[in-house]
């Protein structure tokens, strides 16, 4: 590699698992461990008139998204999909995940995050919490998870949530942008992902069911109640704190930005299933791929996009969050994100099969056939 200036060398090091990258990773780990397991940030938050350490965290998180978002907007100013998506995810963070909850508290309402839904936020379908909320919040929780998620998922794929609304995706696609290429593309990672993500989804569903059963039983079954509380605590510690926070963000400089989203997020798992059944797909332009591999390299979900592109295969992968960077970096404009209706897809399939057969023998006539 040619690295001349100190600045280039630093940029390369920090984005390619160099010493500085490990340092940043260690700092992020330390930050999250301190945040979750100590009260060291509480006096800092008080000194800044931010109330609690969680408000301080929210402020830092929002600032990271806004700064990274600004970087995104400058870098991809020529790509309107990226511009609109980035503005959307920045607004979602500022409004739904930062200002609105605080404003609700100010109005003596529950601190509620409209941009988070079950199963990402299990509390929002926890009867012990849910049924103490005012009615509009209950409705939003229910409709959000059972109507909004599947309907929008069918029409637009999981991207409407994962890369347009969600705060985890928001941080990944703004602050985390310089590290997106570090996601592992190996078959091994893919096999792990399929097991891990559906395991967490299973755990989340079982826990929610338990919470309802335990709630319905009231005090009739103290052992069940105790088990549920225990389960909930462990889930909160391992999944919500460790995997989503400490590991999810801490590994940004080492394993890319979507470790949580790709391997563990139950919401992503659920949306992925919906996506497979829906309209969203990445359309591949036949015979135009030069196998350069930029699409695979810059896929934060570790999808080997090139393998589809070079074999003329339009595809829908459950893990794809529709960030659109593969289409952006493709030097030959081979890829396009699309929402295709079922009929159009069928028709195109017929057409594509025709074209594929045609392109396979493009330019040739087979006398033997």
């Amino acid at each position, binding site marked *: 590699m040619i690295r001349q200036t100190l600045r280039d060398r630093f940029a390369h090091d920090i984005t390619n698992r160099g010493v500085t990258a490990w340092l940043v990773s260690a700092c992020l780990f330390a930050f999250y461990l301190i945040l979750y397991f100590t009260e060291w940030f509480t006096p800092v938050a008080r000194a800044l008139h931010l109330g609690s350490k969680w408000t301080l965290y929210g402020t830092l998180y929002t600032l990271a998204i806004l700064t990274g978002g600004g970087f995104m907007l400058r870098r991809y100013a020529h790509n309107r999909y990226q511009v609109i998506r980035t503005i959307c995810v920045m607004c979602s963070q500022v409004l739904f995940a930062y200002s609105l909850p605080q404003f609700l508290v100010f109005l003596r309402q529950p601190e509620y995050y409209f941009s988070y839904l079950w199963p990402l936020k299990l509390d929002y379908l926890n009867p012990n919490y849910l049924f103490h909320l005012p009615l509009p919040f209950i409705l939003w929780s229910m409709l959000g998870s059972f109507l909004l998620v599947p309907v929008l998922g069918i029409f637009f794929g999981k991207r409407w949530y994962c890369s347009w609304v969600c705060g985890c995706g928001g941080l990944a696609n703004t602050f985390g942008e310089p590290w997106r290429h570090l996601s592992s593309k190996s078959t091994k990672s893919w096999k792990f992902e399929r097991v891990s993500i559906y395991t967490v989804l299973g755990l989340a569903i079982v826990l929610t069911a338990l919470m309802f059963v335990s709630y319905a039983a009231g005090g009739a079954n103290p052992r069940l109640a105790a088990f549920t509380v225990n389960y909930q605590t462990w889930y909160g510690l391992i999944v919500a704190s460790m995997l989503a926070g400490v590991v999810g963000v801490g590994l940004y400089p080492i394993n890319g930005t979507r470790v949580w989203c790709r391997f563990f997020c139950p919401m992503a798992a659920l949306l992925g299933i919906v996506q497979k059944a829906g309209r969203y797909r990445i359309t591949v*332009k036949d015979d135009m791929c030069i196998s*350069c591999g*930029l699409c695979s390299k810059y896929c934060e979900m570790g999808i080997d996009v090139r393998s589809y592109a070079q074999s003329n295969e339009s595809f829908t992968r459950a893990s794809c969050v529709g960030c*659109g960077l593969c289409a952006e970096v493709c030097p030959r404009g081979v890829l396009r994100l699309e929402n295709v209706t079922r009929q159009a897809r069928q028709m195109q399939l017929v057409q594509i099969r025709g074209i594929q057969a045609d392109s396979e023998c493009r330019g*040739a006539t087979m006398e033997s056939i």
Partner: protein
Amino acid sequence: MNYAIVGNGVAGITAALDLRQRDPRAEITVISAESDYFFSRTALMYSFMDRLTRRDLEPYERGVYDAQRIRRVRGWAQDLDAKSCTLTLDNGQTFSWDRLLLATGSRPRRPEWQGLDHARSGLVNFVSLQDLDACEAAVRRGQRAVVVGGGLIGIELVECLRWAGMEVTFLIREPWYWPVALSEAESAMVIEHMRHHGVNVVAGEVVATVETDSHGAVTAVSTAQGSRYECSTLGVSIGVEPALDWLRNVSTPPRLGRGIVVDAGFHTSLPGVFAAGDCAELQLPGSAPIVEQIWYSAKRQGRLAARSMLGERIQYAPPVFFNSSKFFEIEYTTVGRFPNSIPARGQISEGTLVFYFRYPGQDISIRIAGQGGAVQAFNMLGSRWDHNQFERWIEQRRSLDDVMDRLHQAQFDVEFGRLDLAPARTAFKQWRAANPASVEAPA
């Protein structure tokens, strides 16, 4: 059946994978002197610019070759004996084969400049993996570089050297950049874009002499027009030619022209020996010899050559031409052949219409040519298009007016980023009404 393939470029590897797919019992050996694993030649520049690692250049996971039972052998093929059906490498290894595919690709054309033979260092190109090594070793931030040659590899080199912080002069022999593919107006747009990126573009100058120091390091080039350009790095990319020199002195040389001569089934003059990709020269009845030298044609030929090797009767004829590229940030799609390679005004043959429109203030242009009432070629810069759609329209012999009406069907821009076709359509209508004769529309 025992298949040997010389060359692990896109033609060779495509052929190998296709052979495996169609014949599970075949023995397949791929021989390469360049690299252990197939890599994307077209992506060399991205590796140089730190956007990909060397490993990222490989389109297939390394395990694929073992899984597909494709044996890889490193070495230069030195002798070919079609009588005994053997191939000998420079290390003495000998292979016997039942079918042999020559897919040795291209090598850079070497110019006849005075002093070039003395140059030992500072010369760069982007054809092989070794060129990438040499290029990475040769660049020096802040120093001067000259790139000679107005084609696709030339502009890749220019972009890379600029990225590496060099002062780059781009010397183009022709009156404008890449006249075989771009019109003067299109070229002007690309040159303007290059200048915006700090490139010193000089057209219409022919290099005559290369100057070197006592160690053989390049120090300057002089042109026949009397200019002298100092440089520590010299990119020479004046095109490529089939790599076939090694075949001239083998025991049984196949028939050679510009490339290895093959028929429509990719058979060379030797029994059991085939050739495909950049190194092959197609001699089809009733047409001039064809050497196709782009990624897409190599992939296509490799696939079909494999089928021919398996005994299918293949009659290859190049389909409607298409290609793509990217000039710094300007994406480029072309389909079909323009009637004249240099369509200067007034030289276009009777009955030819060429519509050209550049979006004011933007690096976006479209050029569409028709002949005898039917659309013939597209040159699209700065926006994305589905070349398959264009091909179909050319095959269907649609009229220019019809194509302009349905142009949106071929758009492939990102969501929310679709090029607004209204200005182009308005310009087209005005041009059609005012000037139905065969001239280019004013920019």
